[in-house]
Structures are given as C-alpha cells and as structure tokens.
C-alpha cells in the first residue's frame, strides 16, 4: 500500500515535469504550427545554467532564477534567428532544421561543460522528507516539483483564459490570419509565446537538476516523451497537455515499478528486469499509438 502511494506520487511528479515541457511545446505547435525538436535543448540549457550558477554562488534560488532566464533568453534568440524563418515551411524542413539545432546545442554544451555529468545539491530547505500519508515519507523536493507544476498549470490556465494576451494566444491558435488582419503584432506575440515556452522548459530543467544528473543528451531523452504527451493531449491544447502529461507520467512510472516484479515470477531476475524495463518503456508509445488510432487528433483537439 505504502509502495503504491509512493509510486503514485512519483508518477504525479514525473507527470508535472512532462507538463512543464509539453505546455510550451503544444503552444508553439498550436500557434506557430512549428515542430521544435530543439525544445529539449532549452531544457538542457536551463539545467546547465542552473548548475553553473549553483556552483558559483552556492544559492539554489539564484540558480533557479539563472536557469529560467538563460533558457528563456536562449529560446527567444532561437526564435529570432532560426524558427521565425520556418513558420511558413512544411514539417519536414522544421524537423531537419531543429535537428541541426540539437546537434549544435548538444556539442556546444560539451565544449563548455565537458561530457561528465554535473550534480546539483538539493536546496537546504527542501533536503528532508515529509510524511505525506502515515508511514510514507516522501522527499520534500519532489513535493516542491509537484507544487510548482500544479501552480504553473493554474497560472497558465488563468493567463490563457482570463487575460488579453491569453485571448490573443487562443485566437492565434484557431484563426491565425484573422488575428493578424485585426492589427495584432503577431511576430511579437510569437516571440513572447516562444519565450514563455522556453522559460517553462528551463524551469523543468532546473527542477530536474537535483533529481537526476545534468548531462548532454538529457533533453532528447525527455523530448520524445514530451512529444508523445503533446500528441496524446491534442496538438495546441494546454488542457490536453496537462491531462496527457499526468496520464503518461503515471503509466510510465507504474509500469517501471511493477512490470519487472510481475515478470520475475516467470523468468530469471536479471532477464526480467531488462525485459520489464523495455516493456515499460514501450508501454507509453503503445498508449500513444492506441490513442491516435481511436482519436487521430488526440484527446482534447484544439482545432475542433
């Protein structure tokens, strides 16, 4: 019972992490119509910048600020220099150009920081554990991740549903040409949305730092899962991204936690662990294939 409760929290934590990345990606997808493979690079840039600031200053909170700002700045530069030219192109060109960006960013990080993974200390205030349910202690930093993720989800909801900028974002997602015709500076809006997406990706990277190692290639590992989330949720839908992120986070965590144990009943332990890990990695992609076959536009299609 305690194990299940802990795994549920792990699933939730992984889910909100995916949401931080997927929210930006789905907005960029939905509004600019561009597939940005380099979104994972922004996540990596955020994590590295935070690790650097933490090393230099020793303060985790300054690191948080530094990581988020670095990712947002990198994202806006990326948009101004490269992605702006890709909006009118077909998906193939977008995939290839941003693939080139990944190579550039990854190798740039190797040049700056080397191949050795960096490790970031937990912020002292969140180094301990809290007993969430009786008998279930849970690391308080992971609870902080969940809280931040949920707060961002709420904030995004308010921003998109209740503010003027949010209105433009919604209008841009459904009737791009009409918004432009009404005299809105759509290029500025695009840059801002891209910056926001980059900022959230950077935030995810900063939060991931103390939980897992900061290393080159960390972006691509999570990027593909993020795409799965975006596609399952319905491209362009933040609400869908949230639901799908929690779903994917839960499914992935539960499969990883319990499939090897079930397999151990029928085969030797080491083989069961390897096959279990493989099957649980496949599970999420199977889920996506199923969703797409039943609802080709995802769970919450934005352009209904």
């Amino acid at each position, binding site marked *: 019972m305690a194990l299940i409760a802990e795994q549920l929290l792990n699933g939730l934590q992984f889910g909100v992490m995916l949401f931080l990345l997927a929210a930006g990606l789905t907005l960029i*997808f939905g509004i600019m119509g561009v*597939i940005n493979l380099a979104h994972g690079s922004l996540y990596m840039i955020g994590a590295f910048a935070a690790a650097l600031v933490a090393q230099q200053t020793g303060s985790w909170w300054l690191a948080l600020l530094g990581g988020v700002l670095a990712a947002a700045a990198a994202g806006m530069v990326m948009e101004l220099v*490269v992605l702006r*030219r*890709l909006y009118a*192109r077909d*998906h*193939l*060109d977008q*995939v*290839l*150009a941003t*693939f*080139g*960006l*990944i*190579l*550039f*960013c*990854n*190798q*740039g990080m*190797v*040049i700056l920081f080397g191949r050795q993974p960096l490790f970031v200390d937990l912020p002292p205030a969140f180094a301990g554990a809290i007993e969430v349910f009786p008998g279930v202690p849970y690391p308080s930093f992971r609870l902080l991740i969940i809280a931040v993720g949920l707060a961002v989800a709420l904030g995004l909801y308010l921003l998109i549903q209740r503010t003027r900028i949010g209105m433009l974002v919604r209008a841009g997602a459904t009737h791009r040409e009409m918004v432009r015709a009404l005299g809105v500076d759509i290029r500025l809006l695009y840059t801002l949305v891209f910056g926001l997406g980059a900022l959230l990706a950077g935030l995810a990277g900063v939060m991931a730092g103390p939980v897992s190692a900061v290393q080159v290639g960390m972006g*691509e590992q999570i990027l*593909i899962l993020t*795409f*799965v989330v975006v*596609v399952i949720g319905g*491209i362009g839908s933040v609400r869908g991204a949230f639901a799908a992120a929690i779903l994917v986070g839960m499914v992935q965590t539960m499969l990883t936690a319990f499939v090897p144990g079930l397999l151990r009943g029928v085969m030797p332990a*080491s*083989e069961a662990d*390897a*096959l*279990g*890990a*493989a*099957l649980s*990695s*496949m599970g999420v*992609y*199977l889920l*996506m*294939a199923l969703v*797409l*076959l039943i609802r*080709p*536009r995802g769970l919450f299609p934005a352009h209904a």
Partner: protein
Amino acid sequence: MRDRLILAVLLAAAIALPWVATALDQPATTGVATRIACLAIAAVSLNLILGHGGMVSFGHAAYFGLGGYTVGILWEHFRLAEPIFGLIPGSNQLLVTLPAAMLVSGVAAAIIGALSLRTSGVQFIMITLAFAQMLFFLFVGLKAYGGDDGLMVRRRNEVPFLDLRDLNQLYWLCLGLLVVWLYFQHRIVRSRFGRVLEGIRQNERRMAALGVPVYPYKLVAFIIAGMGCGMAGALTVNYLRFVSPDLMAWQKSGELMIMVILGGMGTLLGPVVGAAALVGLEYTLGAITEHWQFILGPILLLVVLFARGGIMAIFGVRRG
C-alpha cells in the same frame, strides 16, 4: 544521352574506387565507401515515400535495424546450432539472410504502415516515431541478443563465388545492390504506380476524387521503403560485424531524412549524393575537431533554410 554518359562515368569511378584507394595508400576509404553505399540504399528507399509520396516517416531506422538484427540473430543461432523457437535454423548464407532481412522488415513495415497511414501530418510523423521507439526499446530489453550492448557477428555472411572477408568484394557487392535498387526505384517512379504516388504527394484529396484508392498505394510504397531499409541494415551489419539498438535510434531516422534532403528530395541520385555528403562531412569535420557536430548542425540548418532542392539542385537537377 549526356545523363547516361555521366552515370556511366560515375559508376566506373565507383567500381574503380578500391584500386585507386590502394594505389593512393588510403585503404580506409573503401570502408567509408562501403558505409556510404549501405546508407545510400536506405536513403534511396526513404526517398520513395518522402520525396515521391510526401509521407514524412520519422521511424525508418527501425527497418534498418530490423534488417540488421535479422542477420545478427540468424548468425547467433547458426553459431549456437540451435533453431529459433526450435523451428527456424540459423544461417550464415547471405542468399538466405538478405531476403530474410527484407521479409522481416517488409512485414514490420506492413503492420506499422497499415496502422500509421490512418493518420496524416504531424500525427503521422509522431506515430511512425512511436513505433520505431517501441522496437528500439524491445531490442534494448532482449538480453538473449545482447540487449543494450548489442550482438557481435564474428564472421561476415558467405556468398557463393565471393569472399566477403575481403572488404573490396563486400564493397562491390553493396555497390552492385545499390545500382540494382536504384534501377528498381527508377522503374517504380516512372510506372503508373509512381505517377499515382506523385499525384498523392501533390494533392491527396484530388487523387481520391479521381477514384484512386489512395491508402493501398501509400501502404505499398511504405512497405517497399521498409524492405529497402532492411536490406541496407543487413549489409551494414555485415560490414560492421556488429549490431546494436543504436542502429534504430531516432537520431538515425533523422540522419536518413537529412541524407534525402541534403542530396535532393525526389531525384534519383539525390539520396546517394546526400549519403556520401553526410558521411563525407562526418569524416572531414571529424578529422578537424572532435566537436564536428558543432559545425555540422549549422550546416544542416543553412541547407534547409537557403538551399532548396539540395546538392542536386546545384547541378541543375530538380524533382520532376
């Protein structure tokens, strides 16, 4: 006439390459050329659906890897002298393993294509990627065949009248198969089937309105592309004498797409030129700095942004 002359000269140069390499004391070149020939077969196949059919598959490394694993697994069972599932005997004969590799990847492409082609656009890109990732993780988990570490194939497959342990002979074999495969693609593209495929790329809805059943045409093209990638994978594993899940990683799918675009999408020789250019860039930049990807990334970016039509367009050859 001029085109044929150029093709003949290029082919003669490709055939003579091992002797020239030996004469210039650059024996490593033949290995590089073998790799290029293998990758070119895969890129030419992908071009059929990407360039002529307008289907952006982000998962064709999966069939490349499946073809490679077919060779690896058949070798493993041949070595251990125990049939697969007690039924299928292993083999080290290329005349068996190569068709087997094409069959396996063709069947996989039929299943995956039949499901994926129900979607289109971004969803199609992502679902092909998802299936490729599934296969990738499946092979990572298959400890019996090396899992993450991959599988050694200690000796190259045997072919009557040839000795593939001699790298030159392997190169000529790959080159020969590439030429055969190019001729096959050339015939497909000029056939009625190819015309329909081109029509689907330009306007799928109009083709459907003309009464063409679009789905089976796309599926058959998807399967042919999968089989070609399977053949390329089988040859690659014979060259490397090693197979691992890396062959089907999503980056490989991206690289195959880059070869097609870099060379010139929808042209006959474009993918071959693209494969040669990408591998060549890798080697030349790799000789200058270990951070060659730092330079390659922006080059790709510039090609996509400013060089429509790829390298073939520089020589005045465009889709058409």
